[in-house]
């Protein structure tokens, strides 16, 4: 059975690195893996999505269908709601309690919408992650993305994969320990 994970966020939040680490882990565990990213204008504050699909059998499409995601992990809370149509019935949402206002908001045309988390909770199995606070506790706000990756690992029961080894191969040596801690914290928070 193919599993579908959707990572959403805003350009610059580290979704691309998180999905890279995730796909490398899944590959190491001998799953067939496909991943698709749309990041055309992301560097300029646009919304970014990574679709990750894996299975013990062959995976064909790299793109998740609407209504089929097992998990949505949102690095920014409004992005969770933007892509909620991808979540399947009974799917899980992990949402970072973090706001990045887009241009229409900073320019004063409209306000950052209130009640997003409440709406998510109303319709889906939602876990709120205070990734910024957690990252600061670990000692570096940049590991927010690895904490959120940890929530995926925990919720999809992928703890048996050698994440430490994958980090060692893909992250600068001075950041490996920090990232390991962040992933472990994410796993704890997913429960």
């Amino acid at each position, binding site marked *: 059975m193919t599993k579908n994970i959707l990572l959403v966020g805003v350009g610059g939040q580290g979704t691309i690195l998180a999905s890279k680490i995730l796909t490398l882990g899944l590959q190491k565990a001998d799953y067939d893996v496909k*991943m698709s990213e749309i990041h055309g204008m992301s560097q300029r504050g646009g919304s970014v999505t990574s679709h990750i699909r894996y299975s013990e059998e062959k995976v064909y499409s*790299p793109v998740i269908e609407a209504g089929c995601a097992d998990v949505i992990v949102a690095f920014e809370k409004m992005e969770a709601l933007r892509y909620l149509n991808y*979540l399947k019935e009974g799917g899980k949402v992990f949402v970072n309690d973090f706001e990045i206002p887009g241009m229409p*908001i900073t320019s004063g045309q409209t306000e950052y919408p209130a009640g997003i988390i409440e709406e998510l909770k109303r319709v889906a199995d939602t876990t709120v992650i205070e990734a910024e606070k957690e990252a600061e506790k670990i000692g570096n706000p940049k590991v927010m993305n690895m904490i959120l990756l940890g929530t995926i690992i925990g919720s999809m029961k992928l703890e048996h994969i050698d994440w430490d080894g994958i980090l060692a191969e893909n992250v600068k040596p001075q950041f490996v320990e920090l990232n390991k801690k962040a992933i472990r914290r994410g796993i704890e928070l997913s429960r």
Partner: protein
Amino acid sequence: MAKQQLMTGNEAIARGVYEAGVRFAAAYPGTPSTEILETISTYKEISAQWSPNEKVALEVAYGASLGGARSFASMKHVGLNVAADPFFTIAYTGGNAGLVVVTADEPGQHSSQNEQDNRNYARHAKVPMLEPSDSAECKAMTEFAFELSEKYETPVLIRVTTRVCHSKSLVELGERKERAIVPYVKNASKYVCVPANARVRRAEVEKRLDALKIYSSGCEWNKIENNGKKTGVIASGMAINYAKEVFGKDVNYLKLGFTFPLPMKLMDEFLKGLDKVYVIEENDEYIEDAVKMLGYKNICYGKFAPDGKRFFPAFGELTSDVVRKCVTGKEPRTLSYDASKVVGRPPALCAGCPHRGFFYELGKRKDIIVSGDIGCYTLGFAAPYNAMDCNCCMGASVSGANGIQKVLDMVEGNKKRVVGVLGDSTFFHSGMTSLLDIVYNKGNCITVILDNRITGMTGHQQNPGTGFTAQGEPTQIVDIEGIVKAIGIKHIRVIDPNDLKLVRETFDWAVALKEPSVIITRYPCVLKKMSIYDKNEWPDAYKAKCKVDPAKCIGCKACLKSGCPAISVKDKKAVIDETMCVGCTVCKQICPKAAIN
């Protein structure tokens, strides 16, 4: 076991180029194709280069093939329009060693100005075409394309789409197979395309196509998967994956990878005995037309159903949910929630972008029409600047401006001036000839070259103005001002676009002139990794921060008109996000109360 690696389609094409023993590759950056040449440039065995435009890239690759090395060029779909001229004639001559061209199309227009289907180019130019569906095929088909190119003495087109380019799947890595350079032998009757020779070659092209038509039906990339059903699916490229998600083993498949010439015999064999066939292809009805030509209109469901009604959408991506909806007639089951809480997140110029001050000033002027171009600066069209009237394709800013101005000036007493705006890389790409047209044909418009010292939009590729090659080796810096002068422009000013007063005064100067002028705004892109030259010229760039003095701020929101993502208003006072601010001072200059330092 061979080493497996997760790769994007683009990385896999580059790997295929490497393993095929290619020695020369050229490209111009363009989404979604850019990473192909970026990856190739990391292989030291290959001479890889960013060319000023796609036409040059293809021509230099063609030359390299004549020189006797396997050669390669890649481009986005609209890039092949630029390179179409050599493409059609190279189809007659073929190369000396293998020559392969990649076109990266954009169903859904994620990052493009149109959605053209470049499979039509293969048919139009009579060039064989391959369509990989995943990264493994990207690598394998690239290697295969070189074999095909040499066997049939023809360039080969590989057509990929955004989802093939930018999705990752597993690829088995092999070794590079070095190939000796094929000695050059003069053969004017083949390579000199005067009519007498080209007519002979034209006949050769037809012979080659006849052979390829037969080859296509037996080709390993065109395969029937018979599941013993009465319904069939024909699809190529990424669409076959979408189809397999929807239909599983409930249909027979004809998976097409070699799609020009189409395998008509194999298609006929597949279609015979079916009650129904779905033709699943993004963009145009390229395969569908062939199915109908074979006489299967009555069972064919493609872009149109047998009754002539629309079936699959005419445009956009045909992802599996789209296909499923068309086939079952049912909407996907999704949660119902309040989507009104979602606010759009349109792309914006970065905090510190040197285009900001320029467009802020441009947007305020009522005496101009702005003809824009392709790059980050196209965002100047949007709020709060609203500083662009049109844009079309690379270089059209300058030539378009010339045309608009000529007609406006036909009306007596016209006071409007037309401004063509384009970036440094776009100027090298195809703005130079347009500027020449202004000078030669007595045009009278203003050209602005936004020189941010890099090709920004596609993720910072080197260009002739930066002083570095694709591999980062130092090279001659091409002087934009010198080119403009040599073309014959008499009025040239080079300005700092972050100095609003200077931008304003320079425009007043240009608008008052009765002759064409060029304004070069020179400041490095805020995201650029500063080169040694940049550090010398702008030692203080992006090292400061701006701050709002809340005691002085009256909450007038004038600074928001800069469109800077670092500024917002909270509790009726402007606030600057210090993690984003790089101290360009545009907001400081706008503030009427001197509340920003």
